[in-house]
């Protein structure tokens, strides 16, 4: 159980760790938007861009994003293996979708290698599957860098502050944030608790690892029942503890750590802005950069 820790906060002191959580959250959201701005094969072909041209543009765009991410990882001083662990979690999903995409590509296709019934393998399909796989990997890596460099408390604080405007339309932002931070706080405790109960039942020769799905599900009852009971007990105790320290919700509550944007946040903002600009330049052919790059690639080949 202890090994399900991908994306878990990695404590070191780095520029990225010290950045304002709000800034990091906004940047990650922007990063995700950027990934989705890169067009798909089909939409590019429909707007009259040749397949070769599209491949060159997209490759350049992803390369820039990848470089940006690499630099961010280096600055964060989180070991590469920790970052890559998040990929491990989605690799099957990505491979599966890529293969489906490859076999059932439904857009325009002129370079068809193989066709049988509804299955067809085409160059367009291959490129489409590749870009999708790259996009998904990049999509997972960005947010996992966020959670690797930001403590859950900072994260929920950041979200609370970012959602603050919603409280004017009666959204209970503070309560949502406190629920989130309690939930996050209790995940390790629950994992530990599960471990303990599992061990106690294993000591009574409970078998969790053999038999079919139903048998295994049934084998979990001796773990789930005590876990549920202890969760209720814990919730009760926590409620009393909060009550006895006069917790009253958001009203009049001040913070020990006041979030403040600093130089590094602005610096990161400008870096991200530059990345945005360069990527969009390649995608939308600003100043003819993409065509120019395409020509260079053509002459080299």
């Amino acid at each position, binding site marked *: 159980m*202890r090994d399900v820790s991908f994306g878990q906060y990695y404590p*070191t002191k780095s520029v990225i760790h010290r950045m304002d959580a709000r800034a990091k959250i906004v940047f990650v959201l922007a990063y995700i938007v950027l990934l989705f701005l890169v067009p798909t094969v089909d939409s590019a072909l429909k707007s009259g861009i040749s397949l070769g041209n599209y491949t060159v543009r997209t490759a350049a765009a992803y390369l820039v994003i990848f470089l940006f991410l690499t630099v961010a990882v280096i600055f964060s001083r989180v070991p590469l293996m920790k970052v890559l662990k998040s990929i491990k979690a989605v690799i099957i999903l990505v491979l599966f979708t890529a293969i489906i995409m490859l076999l059932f590509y439904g857009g325009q296709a002129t370079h068809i290698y193989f066709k049988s019934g509804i299955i067809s393998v085409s160059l367009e399909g291959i490129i489409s599957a590749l870009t999708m796989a790259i996009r998904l990997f990049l999509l997972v890596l960005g947010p996992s860098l966020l959670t690797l460099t930001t403590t859950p408390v900072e994260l929920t604080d950041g979200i609370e502050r970012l959602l603050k405007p919603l409280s004017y339309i009666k959204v209970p932002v503070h309560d949502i944030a406190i629920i989130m931070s309690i939930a996050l706080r209790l995940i390790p405790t629950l994992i530990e608790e599960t471990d303990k109960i599992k061990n106690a039942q*294993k000591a009574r020769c409970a078998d969790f690892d053999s038999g079919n799905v139903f048998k295994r599900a049934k084998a979990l009852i001796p*773990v789930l*029942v005590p876990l549920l009971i202890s969760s209720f007990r814990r919730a009760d105790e926590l409620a009393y503890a909060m009550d006895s320290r006069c917790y009253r919700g958001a009203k009049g509550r001040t913070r020990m750590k006041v979030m403040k944007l600093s130089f590094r946040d602005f610096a990161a903002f400008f870096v991200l802005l530059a990345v945005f600009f360069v990527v969009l330049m390649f995608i939308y052919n600003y100043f003819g950069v993409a065509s120019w790059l395409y020509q260079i690639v053509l002459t080299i080949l």
Partner: protein
Amino acid sequence: MSIVIKDLRYVYSPRTPFERVALDGITMTINDGDFFGIIGHTGSGKSTLISHFNGLIKLMEGSLTVNGIDLTGKYDYKQLRSKVGMVFQYPEYQLFDETVERDVGFGPKNLGLNDGEIKKRVEDAIRLVGLDYEKIKDRSPFELSGGQMRRAALAGVLAMKPEILVLDEPTAGLDPRGKREILELVKHIKSECPTIVMISHNMDEISEYCNRIAVLGNGKLEGVFTPFELFGQEEIIQKLGLRLPTPAYISYLLRERGLDIHASDEQSLVEEILKAKGAKDA
């Protein structure tokens, strides 16, 4: 020889920033018929050590033999776990089934015994822990009182007829009377299950009940002593932030003030103080 431990070493989360050596170079032997105590401060590795005994933690380095089963190689988990009964801290939190009878029968059922044998073992175990079988068997374990729940959980382990019973702080969270009752119960159980290993924080209870005591500090074994030997080890005990049993501690304080007193229990402490006083008066 019951449990033979040699050069045992265990590291949590190796090769990460959370890396922590839990056990380092533990070598000791627990004999058949021992009431073996393990004492140490929080985080000294006591629980990690006992989790090795029934294979809940895989051996990392070193060797371990439990009742002739060599845990370094491949072995039969079920066979091992039926021989080593493990009672964790707050065992009542592991109760789950609808009735006490079914909950206590969980272990024997996992061993694949037939219904008659299960029923017999459940009845024996419930009686052994001092509960009224007829009254309690059809009740939900969650309706019981705290002390009864702990006994029922203990019965759940005993129903597997272990040859070695390992208890991790069986008295945690009980009032003084409850503590005494549980300890007396463990002593009584010893007639059925001759080898007992008990973890405790409390010097008083461990020195009263155990015949041999291992002292752990920061994952290292400071030594295995008889209770009487242990009283002479003030340095080790103080270094580890533990305290001698009360009579021995008072004797130690009196010795520091120049009185020659070596008492291990309340009665002999009183006798020796009176003797010293008599000598002074005379």
